[in-house]
């Protein structure tokens, strides 16, 4: 026992947690204290390597960590207490699981001898979070803690990234045991994500690509997750092949919006040219995307004439929704690198002039057109103005969920990966504001803007207080249409215009609210106000709530009506009441 007291690796569980964070290069954690994590907070107090950002609600910590992770490529770390602290994390954990975001969440738990007793602030954290994490652990012995923590970081960040939870009872935090730094043997031998693609499959893919007459590349969030190198390779592949490229909501920025082969986003609110290209192609190369139902529309009419190549790190994504011809399991960057090499060695740029001519016709339909106005600010116009105003700045965009999110995706151009943070899979209102906090913590000198909706922003509004406390100058740009616009749009299209509970009644005065939080409130009501107001928003180095009053009843087009195929899009110019009613036939008629 006496020699052990000099051993620097002998420490309490609480100390191990902080030590492990440092050993994994963690500089910031997001959290909220409570009884079951006090020993850890005590350790945090006594060191300065890891900075703790105190949020106002655990959900905020989770989304902030997601924003942090997505904008840096490093895992986001969260520390919350047992019981309500843990249950408040369920939404961000699920969000991170759906969008493949690496999070390490440490939860406090009641002492081991009380587990199962309905102790104060006890809940079955590993049981509750089992379906919303990639993996989770309850640590009952302090001597297992180091191994579990290292494994947690490994599991969260490798393969298809995702959230993990380590639940640590309070007695384990107090107990003294042996710590060890990360080592290879810390990882489950049963966990072996596959990184390198099968060479024979890659050859098959290249043969298909080389012979394509009407190809398309469809990329997703997996390319972003695979790191900046993967985006570079994707760009190179587009150059080398000359193929048109579209992307999912999650994949924006992997290929630049100004790139000449860019078709815009695809899917339910994607561009006409992107969806028609998907529908009419003969070879589809899907990289790091998962044929989600917002992308495919009607699955039995999805891109009926194409051979499909699917690169994904997760074998369970293959053939889940759409049958593919050439699956390649592996890391997007790794496989793209190999694919490029083979293509350059064995194939030459196919002649697809005729295909581009066809695409040009679809493009000419101008599917993102909207009617301008001098009296009211159109939401699309507001995003365009915001985009212009931020040019030349080092900008990161987060969003909430709704029409504003889709308009942001359609009208804000992303040139680089890791610049666009949005809740895609889960569609979590309230994501954007705390996510912006996390992004700003990681990039203190950058311009971080949450493109928000009036309803969404109220879900996590309390985090403005965090922004003020930590001097995080996030800009909350609210497209205030005084409606849950996306809900209202569906009610108009599908439920006979009965606007059941989708009006934002009793909205707060956002400018006064900003004042109350101690941040800056700005309002724009007329199109003419925008330039000046945006300039002011960007100039001020404090958190801003920007109340941008926009046309209340504007709807988001183009749109693939439910149960329809890509070639049955409804374009804005054609979205008269009758046409819309016809397109949604089967739904309730419009009045």
């Amino acid at each position, binding site marked *: 026992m006496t020699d052990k007291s000099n051993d620097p690796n002998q420490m309490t569980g609480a100390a191990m947690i902080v030590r492990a964070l440092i050993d994994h290069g963690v500089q910031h954690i997001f959290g909220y204290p409570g009884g079951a994590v006090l020993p850890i907070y005590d350790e945090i107090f006594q060191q300065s390597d890891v900075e703790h950002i105190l949020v106002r609600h655990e959900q905020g910590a989770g989304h902030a960590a997601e924003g942090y992770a997505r904008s840096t490529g490093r895992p986001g770390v969260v520390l919350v207490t047992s019981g309500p602290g843990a249950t408040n994390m369920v939404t961000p954990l699920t969000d991170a699981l759906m969008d493949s975001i690496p999070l390490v969440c440490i939860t406090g738990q009641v002492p081991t001898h009380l587990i199962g007793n309905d102790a104060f602030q006890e809940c079955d954290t590993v049981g509750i979070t089992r*379906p919303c994490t990639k993996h989770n652990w309850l640590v009952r012995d302090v001597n297992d803690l180091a191994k579990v923590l290292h494994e947690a970081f490994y599991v969260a960040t490798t393969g298809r990234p995702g959230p993990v939870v380590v639940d640590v009872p309070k007695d384990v935090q107090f107990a003294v045991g042996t710590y060890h730094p990360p080592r290879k043997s810390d990882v489950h031998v049963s966990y072996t994500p596959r990184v390198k693609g099968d060479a024979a499959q890659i050859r098959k893919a290249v043969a298909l690509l080389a012979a394509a007459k009407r190809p398309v590349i469809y990329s997703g969030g997996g390319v972003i997750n695979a790191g900046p190198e993967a985006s570079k390779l994707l760009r190179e592949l587009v150059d080398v092949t000359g193929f048109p490229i579209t992307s999912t909501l999650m994949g924006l920025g992997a290929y630049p919006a100004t790139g000449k082969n860019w078709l815009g986003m695809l899917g339910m609110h994607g561009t006409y040219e992107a969806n028609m290209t998907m529908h009419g192609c003969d070879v589809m190369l899907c990289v790091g995307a998962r044929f989600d*139902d917002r992308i495919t529309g009607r699955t039995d009419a999805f891109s009926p004439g194409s051979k499909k190549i699917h690169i994904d790190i997760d074998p369970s994504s293959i053939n889940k929704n759409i049958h593919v011809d050439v699956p390649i399991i592996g890391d997007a960057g790794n496989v793209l690198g190999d694919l490029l090499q083979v293509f350059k060695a064995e194939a030459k740029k196919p002649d697809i002039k005729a295909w581009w001519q066809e695409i040009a016709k679809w493009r000419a339909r101008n599917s993102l057109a909207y009617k301008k106005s001098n009296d009211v600010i159109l939401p699309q116009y507001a995003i365009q103005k915001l985009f212009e105003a931020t040019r030349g700045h080092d900008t990161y965009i987060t969003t909430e969920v709704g029409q504003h999110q889709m308009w942001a995706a359609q009208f804000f151009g992303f040139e680089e990966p890791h610049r666009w943070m949005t809740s895609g899979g889960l569609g979590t209102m309230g994501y954007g504001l705390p996510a912006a906090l996390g992004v700003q913590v990681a990039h203190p000198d950058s311009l971080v803007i949450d493109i928000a909706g009036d309803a969404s922003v109220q879900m996590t509004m309390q985090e403005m207080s965090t922004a003020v406390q930590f001097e995080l100058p996030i800009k909350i740009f609210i497209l205030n249409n005084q409606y849950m616009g996306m809900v209202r749009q569906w009610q108009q*299209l599908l439920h006979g215009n009965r606007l059941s509970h989708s009006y934002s009644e009793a909205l707060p005065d956002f400018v006064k609210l900003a004042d109350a939080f101690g941040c800056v409130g700005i309002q724009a009501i007329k199109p003419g106000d925008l330039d000046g107001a945006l300039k002011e928003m960007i100039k001020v180095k404090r958190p801003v709530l920007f109340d941008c009053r926009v046309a209340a009843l504007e709807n988001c087009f183009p749109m693939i009506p439910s149960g329809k195929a890509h070639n049955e899009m409804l374009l804005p110019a054609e979205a008269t009441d009758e046409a819309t009613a016809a397109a949604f036939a*089967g739904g309730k008629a419009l009045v």
Partner: protein
Amino acid sequence: MNQPASAYFLEERHDPNETHTLSVLVQNEPGVLARVIGLFSGRGYNIDSLTVSETESHKHLSRITIVTTGTPTVIEQIKHQLDRMIPVYRVVDMTITGRSIERELAMVKVRGRGDSRVEALRLADAFRARVIDATTESFVFEITGNSSKISQFIDLMRPLGLVEVARTGVAAIGRGPEGM
């Protein structure tokens, strides 16, 4: 064709179902069975039978045998979803390999006197079931075999005074010298 108003594509595909037996080798750690079962309930897969036991205690390995029913696409999904769980080492589809033996054990309690008692004993003999408990008015039979043989035996016992049945669920193993 006319689907109700919805944000989702609601028409289901109706491919024919198949029944498959999967052998899953897992790290025997707390919660591993809950993970597997949670996967099935969470994603709406069927479990027709599930057995689990530690098989190599020094390596903390357990073997789970799952009989499941679904379309070929769903069965494929189930295997991938199982395989990507962190504590899962291997998933083998015993139905596809086609070279496997499946066995189940049941204990069947039958109560009766006179002719039906004699008849029960006679049938048990024909099915190679063993008597493992007896009173003057009851038997407990132990029977092993594939699931359909056991079901058939139970059906025959029903009119003869079947009281209750305990079945283990299916265990499966490949033929030949190789392990899974």
